[in-house]
């Protein structure tokens, strides 16, 4: 994780609270999230973890899309992962997860997720889909 992560999460929190960013539920079957790139290879995000239904969110800002992906696996508590990708990128990048050692990052990521969950309105989401925003 790089040092921009804390600033990124803080900015996402600020813009979500001021309603500049309106998050939508992310439907896993839409395959909008590109494979994750790390230093060695590109791998599918779902390789090891199972997505939790109806618990992931995404938002687009200019040409950048942010994803909050909720996953679970056999031996860990449910995790939230923050992925970022751009329209032109071939892969997505993992910025933060809730199981890393830096407690300031994990607590702020959980805080962001709680805000997104609280602000999410399924009716507004449906209306936005209907009018094609």
């Amino acid at each position: 994780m790089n040092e921009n992560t804390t600033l990124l999460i803080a900015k996402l929190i600020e813009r979500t609270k001021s309603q500049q960013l309106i998050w939508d539920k992310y439907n896993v079957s839409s395959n909008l999230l590109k494979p994750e790139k790390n230093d060695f290879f590109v791998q599918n995000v779902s390789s090891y973890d199972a997505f939790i239904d109806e618990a992931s969110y995404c938002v687009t800002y200019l040409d950048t899309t942010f994803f909050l992906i909720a996953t679970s696996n056999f031996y860990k508590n449910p995790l939230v992962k923050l992925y970022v990708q751009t329209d032109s990128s071939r892969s997505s990048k993992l910025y933060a997860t809730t199981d890393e050692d830096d407690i300031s990052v994990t607590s702020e990521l959980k805080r962001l997720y709680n805000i997104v969950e609280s602000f999410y309105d399924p009716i507004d989401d449906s209306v936005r889909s209907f009018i094609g925003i």
Partner: protein
Amino acid sequence: MLSTIADILGILSFLLSIFVLIMSHSVFKYVNSQKQEYDDERTQLQSSLMALRNNIWKDNLTGIKTRSKLRTELYSYLQKYWKISSPLCLFHIFRSIRICRKDYNDTDKEKLCDSIDYLIARFNKKEVHQNE
């Protein structure tokens, strides 16, 4: 007659001592495994409570969703670790749960944050594991 009773009581107290020794050994093992599990999970619990404290205090999220999440965290802690919790820790957990049961005013909100602050600080502390 009295000596026979004394002999029987002596045998019974010997058997009771062995029973208590076995039981205390298994309780000791259980508490140690609880402490180990707590140490593995405490940073997750701590970060969840920090997030919820900021949601309540800074983001003003006081709705049912946030309160329910906080209660779930506290109940799951209680289910797992009440045996190794101090009375003060249990007091703050129950106070938080009680405040979360209804809509709260600013005074209650401050009390709630006070209790969560105590629990966050509590989770800084590692448990001491004694050798068997």
